[in-house]
């Protein structure tokens, strides 16, 4: 399996391209912006986008769909039934699916948004705006923050410490690093 990382200066968000080593059908996670660099990344690695996974509905994670749909024919997966008027295959908590020959599990972690999903592919966890290096996602209310922290504790922290975390914004990290280093998780541990 190959994982490629693309950074968009529009929305400052990360898009991930995942496919098999030989190329072929591939998954794109959170196409916040479609540009020539992302197109080159896809084409030069002989990938065809067949599945798009969205961690949540915010534009910095979805807006690239507008252009992508003019180039590739793919299915969109998210927790909402529609994103930008596009029909979506809805994934609920604890979903397990095989896309482009790759097994993907999805977990609902609400708090930053009500439809926030994290996707796990082998030992790589794509966390969108749920968990980033050194911080958790922003929330509008203290209730949402509590919900987010509780969900992270219940569904992410029990995963293996070696899990690699690929967030929607900022650099990658690992689960163990976040356990010992992320102040948003440390303070709750002590409660």
């Amino acid at each position, binding site marked *: *399996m*190959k*994982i490629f*990382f693309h*950074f968009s200066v529009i*929305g*400052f*968000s990360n898009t991930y391209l995942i496919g098999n080593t030989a190329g072929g059908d591939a998954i794109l996670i959170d196409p916040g912006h479609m540009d020539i660099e992302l197109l080159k990344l896809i084409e030069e690695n002989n990938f065809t986008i067949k599945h798009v996974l969205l961690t949540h509905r*915010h*534009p*910095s994670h979805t807006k690239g769909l507008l252009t992508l749909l003019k180039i590739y024919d793919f299915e969109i997966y998210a927790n909402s039934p529609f994103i930008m008027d596009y029909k979506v295959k809805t994934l609920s908590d604890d979903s397990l699916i095989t896309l482009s020959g790759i097994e993907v599990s999805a977990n609902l972690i609400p708090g930053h948004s009500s439809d926030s999903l994290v996707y796990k592919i*082998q*030992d*790589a966890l794509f966390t969108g*705006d749920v968990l*980033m*290096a*050194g*911080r958790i*996602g*922003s929330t509008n209310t203290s209730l949402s923050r509590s919900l987010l922290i509780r969900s992270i504790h219940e569904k992410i922290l029990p995963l*293996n*410490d*070696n899990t*690699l975390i690929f967030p929607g*914004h*900022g*650099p*990658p*990290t*690992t689960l*163990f*690093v976040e356990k*010992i*280093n*992320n*102040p948003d998780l440390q303070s709750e541990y002590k409660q």
Partner: protein
Amino acid sequence: MFNFIRCSHPDCDNFTVTNQNECFLHAADKEALHTQLVRNLEKKKPLGSYCLTHSEFTDLDFSESKLYACKLSNSIFRNVNFSNSYIQLSFFELSTFINCRFEEITSKYSVFAGSIFQNCSFAGSDILHSNFSGIHAKNSIFDDSDLYFTNFSNANLDNVSFKDCNLKKTDFNLSVRNEVSFKYSNFEEASFTRETQS
């Protein structure tokens, strides 16, 4: 990406050394694996999707290395020269670096979080979108570097120099800084407090 295969040793969760059944700690012939990796890096052979963690490297020249999607975490590096190397999507977290040179490197999307840096130089480097959160750095230099979107949150920085750096979107949130210089750098474009994420 390196294979996410677990060590065959009971109760060990470490990833295996690439093309082996055990992690480096439980490998039967550690020396051969270590020597092979060192030779490849000294020969400037590009290293892709390779995993070997919990090792030690001393007095080595890994300059002009090319590392892509590698994991060399939890290791100790003493007097190792990584200058002019290209490091992308690679993991060095929870390592110790003593007297190491990373001058004029390019680091993209790579993770050094939780590591210790003592007497290390990253001068003249492009360190973009990389994770240095929770590091303990002492007597180290990042001068003349582009640190766009690099994360130093929760870091402990003692006598560390960031002179004439690009600090746009560099995250120093909750970092502890003693004798840290940002002279000639655009520190006003760095983040020292929490911002709302979109």
